[in-house]
């Protein structure tokens, strides 16, 4: 003989039972709606990393490579400012991705299959899911604020490095006429203040004795 439960059925209990029946009949629609919402969340999570490139600064992250001091480790020269900004970009991107993830989970939940979908089970599961959603929403907001702060710091570092670092002089093409010939070469002011030939990947070479040096936009 089965035991029974000496407990009256309240109107709220009946409502949960009705909702459990409706949820059971709408199981497939629920899962598909969650999958659709999640597919949109994927684009958001991936878009975060693209958005994080906003921290790239005045021009691009590559511009920061020449700004500020560098640390030499063997054959590798690591620009300090650029590295710090890249690190901040990554931290911000990860925090934003986590914030989007948490918000998506809070909004969509994680549907699961149960062998007995009843009013009491749905009521208990809804209470647990609500508490989880509150926690996820709070985490998402905190992560968003943290990411915004990191983005702000990263932008500040990037811009400050551009302000305090004098602009590099780009090589200028020039037609150089010497006693032995004529050549069109890129020239720039060397460290000692004299004009030097600035060929790519080669240390600037002093021009030496030139009869005339004519600056041109492009070499003929």
């Amino acid at each position, binding site marked *: *003989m*089965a*035991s*029974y*439960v*000496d*407990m*009256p*059925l*309240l*109107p709220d*209990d*009946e409502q*949960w*039972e009705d909702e*459990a029946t409706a*949820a*059971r*009949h*709408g*199981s*497939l629609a*629920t*899962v598909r709606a969650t999958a659709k919402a999640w597919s949109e969340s994927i684009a958001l999570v991936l878009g975060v990393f693209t958005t994080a490139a906003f921290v790239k600064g005045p021009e691009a992250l590559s511009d920061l490579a020449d700004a500020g001091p560098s640390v030499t480790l063997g054959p590798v020269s690591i620009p300090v400012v650029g590295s710090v900004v890249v690190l901040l970009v990554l931290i911000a991107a990860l925090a934003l991705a986590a914030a989007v993830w948490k918000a998506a989970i809070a909004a969509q*939940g*994680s*549907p*699961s*299959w*149960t*062998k*007995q*979908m*009843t*009013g*009491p*089970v*749905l*009521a*208990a*599961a*809804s209470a*647990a*899911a609500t508490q*989880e959603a509150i926690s996820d929403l709070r985490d998402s907001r905190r992560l968003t604020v943290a990411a915004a702060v990191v983005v702000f710091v990263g932008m500040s570092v990037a811009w400050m490095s551009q302000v305090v670092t004098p602009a590099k002089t780009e090589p200028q093409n020039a037609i150089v006429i010497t006693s032995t010939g004529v050549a069109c070469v890129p020239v720039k002011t060397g460290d000692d203040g004299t004009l030097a030939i600035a060929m790519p990947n080669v240390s600037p070479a002093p021009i030496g004795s030139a009869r005339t040096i004519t600056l041109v936009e492009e070499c003929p």
Partner: protein
Amino acid sequence: MDEDTKRVIVDALVGAVGGSQATHPESEDRWPMSRCHWLGGGYSEKWTKAVADAPWHERKTTDEYVDWYKQLACPRCGHPMTVLVAPGVMPSKYESIRDHALVVARCNCRQLHTDRPEKQLGCGYGGYVPAPEVTR
């Protein structure tokens, strides 16, 4: 005529022609009463015990899943009623099903009961009964 005799007569009349518990206390000794009025939220130990004692029947819905039902005459109105427990999708992950292994049972007969709201079934009685055992 003493009070007990009056009560027996009233109960007999209510049982015979139906009636509202609000105006006449309904004697469970007279159950089943096919013409009883609808009584929302109606509950009694006798009703719940009778429904709980009815056996669960397992019904295969897919190769992997089953649902359970019990079919009996409502202890109050005597009309056929069913209780169904079936699988479904929860809004979130939830494992501890056995902590809430109760099922809401309600009379859901289709026979007419006076005062019953539209879109409702049954005579208004209901209660909690133990859920079927999950064997697989």
